[in-house]
């Protein structure tokens, strides 16, 4: 996808999110900076606890009660439907900073209406005691004044749009009468109810089986195309990334360590963590040999991290990696990574030869594996 600068829809700047856990303070996001462009799909990958979910939840003010935004900004365009553009021309009010939102009333017009979210497990994200129709209609009704008939018409339209057959009948049914894939479609319908600008999919296919995964992903892709959505995927499935993403952000220990287009990150990874992550793809394994795994474990986020968070697990780590946090080094206008290895003074480290096996991204797609 063409990424035109200036079409930024949301940008996080030096975002620091902390949590209070049993009297200790945990730093979940360590100064994350990331821009989101209109109409793109961005995949955020990283292991559990790397801050992927926390990052996106902070766009919606849905952090757990013990978490807070400590520093930084999340700039988001004001809603043109609500705010007067004459004001924005004076340059003051065009963007608002979500990080300064304190009261629930400030968040309500954003949640669901402008930024919507899909959660991992469709089996638990629907209220078992309310009909599908009510739950979808509720999402619409919250942001639109409408009559019952209008609400119903919208629900039917949404259900048809996400590919549910016989919506007239389905509308009166309860979640337990739906299969997992169907429920995820319903959750997607809820997210789409108010035509949001940004759709955040928090591991949308993890809880589904492979054939349903493919259906849900193609549904999401179609919706993105038809409604000019900006989609953020959170996933640890690199197959999903290859399938849907324009750009990839790799997160490690609460920071984006590498950011680039899908092709750049897969074919020319620069951060040692990204390289290690790609090396651990089972598709790269050779029959009879043990699969690659990253030695060590992620750092403790309760303590302050010095230098590069990945240094301790990196065989090619430089001295500087343990002392000072690396800045972003640009590899191309769209590709940057946070590692001292990209510094002109750093010794050249050749990428592992196995990575050359990732020749064709399409082979990675959807667990097809890399065929020899």
């Amino acid at each position, binding site marked *: 996808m063409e990424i035109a600068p200036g079409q930024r829809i949301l940008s996080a700047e030096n975002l620091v999110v902390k949590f209070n856990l049993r009297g200790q303070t945990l730093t979940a996001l360590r100064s994350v900076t990331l821009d989101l462009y209109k109409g793109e799909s961005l995949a955020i990958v990283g292991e559990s606890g790397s801050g992927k979910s926390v990052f996106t939840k902070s766009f919606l003010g849905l952090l757990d009660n013990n978490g807070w935004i400590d520093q930084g900004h999340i700039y988001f365009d004001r809603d043109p439907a609500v705010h007067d553009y004459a004001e924005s021309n004076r340059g003051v009010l065009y963007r608002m900073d979500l990080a300064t939102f304190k009261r629930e009333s400030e968040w309500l017009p954003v949640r669901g209406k402008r930024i919507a979210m899909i959660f991992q497990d469709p089996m638990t994200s629907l209220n*078992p005691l309310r009909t599908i129709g009510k739950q979808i209609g509720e999402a619409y009704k919250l942001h639109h004044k409408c009559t019952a008939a209008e609400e119903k018409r919208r629900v039917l339209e949404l259900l048809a749009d996400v590919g549910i057959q016989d919506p007239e009948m389905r509308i009166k049914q309860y979640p337990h009468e739906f299969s997992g894939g169907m429920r995820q479609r319903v959750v997607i319908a809820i997210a789409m109810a108010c035509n949001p600008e940004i759709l955040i999919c928090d591991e949308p296919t993890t809880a589904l089986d492979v054939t349903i995964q493919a259906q849900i992903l193609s549904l999401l892709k179609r919706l993105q195309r038809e409604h000019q959505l900006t989609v953020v995927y959170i996933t640890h499935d690199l197959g999903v990334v290859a399938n849907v993403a324009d750009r990839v952000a790799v997160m490690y220990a609460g920071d984006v360590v590498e950011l680039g287009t899908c092709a750049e990150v897969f074919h020319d990874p620069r951060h040692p963590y990204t390289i290690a992550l790609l090396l651990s793809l089972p598709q790269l394994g050779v029959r009879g040999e043990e699969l690659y795994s990253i030695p060590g474990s992620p750092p403790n986020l309760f303590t302050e991290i010095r230098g590069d968070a990945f240094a301790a697990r990196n065989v090619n780590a430089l001295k500087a990696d343990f002392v000072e946090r690396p800045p972003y080094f640009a590899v191309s206008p769209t590709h940057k990574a946070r590692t001292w290895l990209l510094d002109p003074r750093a010794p050249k480290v050749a990428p592992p030869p196995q990575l050359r096996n990732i020749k064709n991204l399409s082979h990675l797609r959807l667990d097809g594996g890399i065929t020899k």
Partner: protein
Amino acid sequence: MVIVISVVFCLMRLLPVEGYFGSRSDAMNEKVKQQVLTQLGLLDPWYTQLLKFWKNLILHGDMGKSIVYRTGVPNAEIIASKAGYSLGFGLAALILQKLIGLPLGVLMARFKGKFLDKLGSTYILLINAVPEAVYFLMIQLYVSDFFHWPMLHKAGNSMSYLLPVICLALGGIATDALWMRRYMVDEMNKDYILLARAKGMTSSAVSFKHVMRNAFVPMAQSLPTAIIFTISGSLYVESLFSIPGMGGLLVTAIQRQDNTLVQAMVLLFSAMSVGGLLLGDLTMMLCDPRIRLAGKKESR
């Protein structure tokens, strides 16, 4: 139910026969005793007795007559005269209990970890830790003194109804608040609550529309049983405030070996529990679409 009643019927027959003669036992000679027993039909083999009992019950709705407690008065009448009191007090207490207990639980869950939650927890702990007898007595003595309310129940004096009802409700409030809070907290951690919030709902709307109703479902099951069992009354509160209710009746009847009265009461109570459970399940079915009676269309 049939089994319970039959078993109790047989067990009562195993008790020594002396009980049937009451205090006059010593004064009677062997012949008179035999006569009494024959008259009561107690010398027939046990299965004849059991059959006769069931026949009377089913064909005539007859629960027999009291032998000792109030000799010759039909059991149904004795129970009816007492049940009215217990039912009245019990229902009033139950309503009070639900009206205070459930909202208390809801509020405690909403302000979890805050002052209100801690205050509620203290109350629950106190009620459970201090024996009923102690705080009932304190209430009777001090509260009635403070407001100049009568200490004992008097028919027609409206103020005298208040304290027993409050006493009856106190324990239930604690239990209800405890469970409601627990179910609410359980519900609040569910994914669909997060989704509801992500839709842009206010947190009070979420608690009201999603959390509360779902949390109430498990509470609903016990409701019919609770309503029905108000009939059985409370031994302690009724004796404390001298309310002529059902509370002590079963104990007295067993002690005095009033077989027919015991049977009648066991019949009533077991019918109540079975009915209560059934109603509870039906209530659940109304509240929770996932639950259907077997035999109907099976879902998924």
